């Protein structure tokens, strides 16, 4: 057993801890781990190149950006906000829970890529959630706005992860089945998918409850003083440097 390739893991951990830009950290980890395993530079380059281009599907979400951008230019986010703020009874908690339920059910049917951070969270869910939160009667402070957006992204992730495992025709279930088949254990996909259901239901209950608590916290933080503050201020985007 070879322990040296674990150096690559150390590079990742240290790089992330020191808040270097993650892209060079990750590439460096690959190079270190390859060198430690005794591979030649040419082999490492081949390995990096082929692994990178075989995973191109991960960037396809970028194709949504032109359409979403054009709609944003014409006020998509503003309209989503206006619309939700006119709908009575559509509270932040209800919005988050409905989104979670839809996301989980669609993923259980194998439709994982039709919603996502680029497709639905930025253009629709986040502005709707902000508008729903502002129904408390006071505009959101920048920090609260960030919290609401982050919670939307979290809700999308949880809905996706704990939905897709129940779908039998691709991804997780087939990977599990394939692994066991290689080791001489034959299983039906449905046998595996069924046992993902209890966790899926618990994920909905736990995150749903957390959504209610989160919405309550946002509601409780409304201070009437802020309502009078400059309305232009809230539209400013954070310009903090993200490059860590």
């Amino acid at each position, binding site marked *: 057993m070879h322990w040296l*390739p674990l150096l690559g893991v150390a590079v990742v951990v240290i790089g992330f801890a020191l808040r270097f830009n993650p892209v060079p950290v990750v590439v460096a980890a690959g190079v270190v781990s390859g060198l430690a395993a005794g591979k030649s530079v040419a082999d490492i380059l081949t390995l990096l190149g082929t692994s990178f281009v075989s995973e191109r599907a991960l960037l396809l979400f970028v194709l949504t950006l032109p359409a979403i951008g054009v709609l944003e230019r*014409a006020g998509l986010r503003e309209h989503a906000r206006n619309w939700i703020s006119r709908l009575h009874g559509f509270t932040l908690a209800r919005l988050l829970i409905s989104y979670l339920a839809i996301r989980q059910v669609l993923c259980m049917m194998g439709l994982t890529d039709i919603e996502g951070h680029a497709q639905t969270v930025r253009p629709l869910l986040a502005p709707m959630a902000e508008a729903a939160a502002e129904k408390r009667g006071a505009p959101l402070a920048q920090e609260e706005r960030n919290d609401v957006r982050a919670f939307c992204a979290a809700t999308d992730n949880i809905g996706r992860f704990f939905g897709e495992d129940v779908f039998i025709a691709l991804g997780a279930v087939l990977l599990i089945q394939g692994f066991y088949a290689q080791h001489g*254990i034959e299983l039906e996909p449905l046998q595996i998918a069924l046992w993902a259901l209890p966790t899926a239901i618990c994920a909905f209950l736990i995150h749903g409850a957390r959504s209610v608590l989160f919405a309550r916290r946002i509601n409780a933080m409304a201070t009437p003083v802020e309502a009078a503050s400059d309305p232009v201020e809230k539209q400013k985007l954070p310009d903090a440097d993200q490059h860590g």
Partner: protein
Amino acid sequence: MLTIEHAYWLLALFLAGAAWLNLRGRRGWHAAFWTVLAALFACGDFVLDAAKSHNEVPAQLAGIGVLALAVLAPRMHRGELREREEVMREADALRLRHKLFVPAILIPLVTMAVALFGSYAAFGGMRLFAQKQMTLTGLALACMVALIAALWVTRARPRAGLIEGRRLLDTLGWAALLPLTLAALGGVFAATGVGDAIAQLVRMAIPVNSALACIVAYGIGMVLFTVIMGNAFAAFPVLTAGIGLPLLIQLHGANPAILGALGMLTGYCGTLFTPMAANFNIVPVALLELPNQSDVIRAQWKTGAMLLILNLILMYFLVFRH
């Protein structure tokens, strides 16, 4: 026939367009970054085909491209990209109202239509969509349909698609690339035996005769490995071959179907904790313009931790039933 390669070429075209706009805007680092990435996307299939027939030069050039991206990434600072004024956006929003939702909804709807019915679509005896990665091919098609609809609804000029798309792409910046680089790292880790070393370490640390200790080691191992790799799919075969199969299934008689399903889900809890799962935890930070890298993780780790404990309990009580 539409295949996933067409989608990659389309994406390469968009990246090249974004590079061109950046070059004209005197943002050289951004221009170089998107140019290299566009080249990697356009030539990807050529690289893979060449590697299959043992010509490794294109793959090595692609590897150099990846190194170049790593060098360029830290130089991409988020600059000032002007968005249309809010007053004008607000005015358009009041005029166009729900019409604005139609193109946005078209993205999921067309993708879903292709995913569900794409296998039956044919024209003159030829299938319209290749079977391989049909949903993602559908997503690419849906994006084009939505773009045309968006231009039509908003009466914007076609080049607005490139300009606005590039604005969002530059907002993402290097974060867009992270999922791909991490996946490539996964490939390298798998080829250099990192996984086996970790499974070995875990086995050295636990008393193998205790079923509970094995369950906890398997579950925590799945989480830790997922946190390091950013992907439960990478962790599953390693940990199940290292701990699940020999100790839990063969030694303690665990039910493989239940163990597999719950083991994978335990790994998913780990995905909620880690910046390595960049497409879920870092990309949205950039897309939603949040100030800290860890904002999304902070919003979700409690749900993940509760589900992790719950999964370990479920595993302990379900897998040994007969």
